[in-house]
């Protein structure tokens, strides 16, 4: 197995930028601030625009790696940015939600128009998920930072393990749809380009899916994570929707659930444009570049890097939570 130059560049440069650039800047920053009156510069020594620019560049690379690894941006953004940047976790979670929301809104329309995302499936699950995401956001903003940091760390490690273990089923076999999905008319047809034919699909275990979306919504609201990492396995492995329908509908559900939680963060003053906007812009630009690189880079290797990054960020958040 030989890797091309492009692969090596991607595998080495992107993670290095993600983890070490803020560290290098922070170290330089500390050195710089030692020689300058503290009150003349922002909290960490550098001018504000350096941090904003750094956040934009960082989010750009995060966007590339997120799309190549097939994960949402939010799940990488919150643990890594909260570990490496000087922002309070409240603002990182608020920005993380906005990043996930902006990404889902811009991706939602083409997915709906192509018939990959399913409106009925999404609306049924999002209603219950959005209610629990409001409660998640309220709990998340009420708890002390170290508790959130600690539970975020454990959650991120858990997500990394799920990503490592979870299987995928391209076209799950459903013997019969359940009663609730029949009442809600949740079924569909989409055109599978790789097979050049229409695929009929239906779902089962709808009540179990609804309960799981309560949990997913709560966690998304509490940590500002977005929730593609959980939505997709539930749609695909629990409800039995085809993988492409699951991924597309997950994006759409995210746009509804994150909206509910985002309002709570906005009203609590936990969304700073100075942090949220560069993150949104960087991430969206990065995902566009990432989509173009998708065919050139070995996604399996990138997935391993993402899982490693998540584990590192998760353990770092746990240590921070313990005050270490």
């Amino acid at each position: 197995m030989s890797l091309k130059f492009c692969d090596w560049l991607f595998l080495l440069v992107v993670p290095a930028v993600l983890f070490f650039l803020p560290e290098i800047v922070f170290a330089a920053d500390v050195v710089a601030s030692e020689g300058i009156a503290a009150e003349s510069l922002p909290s960490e020594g550098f001018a504000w625009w350096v941090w904003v620019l750094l956040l934009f560049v960082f989010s750009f690379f995060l966007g590339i790696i997120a799309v190549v690894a097939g994960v949402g941006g939010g799940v990488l953004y919150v643990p890594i940015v909260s570990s490496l940047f000087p922002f309070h976790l409240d603002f990182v979670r608020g920005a993380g939600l906005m990043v996930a929301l902006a990404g889902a809104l811009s991706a939602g329309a083409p997915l709906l128009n192509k018939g990959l995302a399913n409106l009925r499936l999404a609306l049924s699950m999002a209603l219950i998920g959005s209610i629990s995401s409001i409660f998640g956001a309220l709990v998340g903003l009420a708890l002390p930072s170290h508790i959130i940091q600690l539970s975020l760390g454990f959650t991120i490690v858990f997500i990394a393990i799920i990503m490592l273990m979870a299987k995928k089923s391209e076209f799950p076999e459903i013997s019969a749809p359940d009663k609730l999905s029949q009442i809600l008319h949740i079924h569909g047809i989409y055109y599978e380009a790789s097979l050049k034919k229409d695929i009929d699909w239906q779902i089962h275990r709808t009540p179990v899916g609804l309960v799981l979306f309560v949990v997913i919504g709560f966690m998304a609201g509490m940590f500002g994570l977005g929730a593609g990492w959980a939505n997709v396995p539930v749609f695909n492995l629990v409800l039995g929707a085809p993988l492409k329908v699951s991924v597309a509908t997950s994006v759409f559900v995210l746009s509804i659930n994150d909206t509910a939680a985002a309002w709570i963060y906005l009203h609590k003053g936990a969304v700073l444009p100075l942090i949220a906007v560069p993150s949104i812009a960087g991430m969206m630009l990065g995902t566009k570049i990432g989509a173009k690189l998708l065919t050139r880079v070995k996604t399996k290797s990138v997935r391993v890097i993402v899982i490693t990054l998540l584990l590192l960020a998760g353990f770092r958040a746990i240590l921070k939570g313990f005050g270490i």
Partner: protein
Amino acid sequence: MNEKHSKPDNAQRVYGQVLHWVSTLGIVFVILGFAIYIFELFPLKVPISDIAKNWHLGAEELNRQFHLPTGWAWVNDMLHGDVLSFASIVYLSGATIICLAAVAVVFFREKNVIYTTIAFLQILVLVFAASGIIGSGH
């Protein structure tokens, strides 16, 4: 032809169309709002450097320190660059409500009782979150 069968239904098509325009406009607003903010084309409620000096503080502490309004009170200060940038983010958060309202009308016209109810309830949940009844204040 195969693709003929896999076209989205009317409600889904309407949601997709509305979402396309609402989200495109949202991204434009967010970029414009941010440009107005950082280039200080309008006066700011709180100088950028003051925010940067204190962004390590929690949201509640930062708001208290600068007497920043929570909930919808920012609407009274719309002619400030930082508030305009914040307003653009608020618009982005309202995009889904606009799309749901459009699709609720489609479901209602189609006499689809189940999904008219679900869409209506979903709008209620989001409007409730957006109202600031819960979540605003300290």
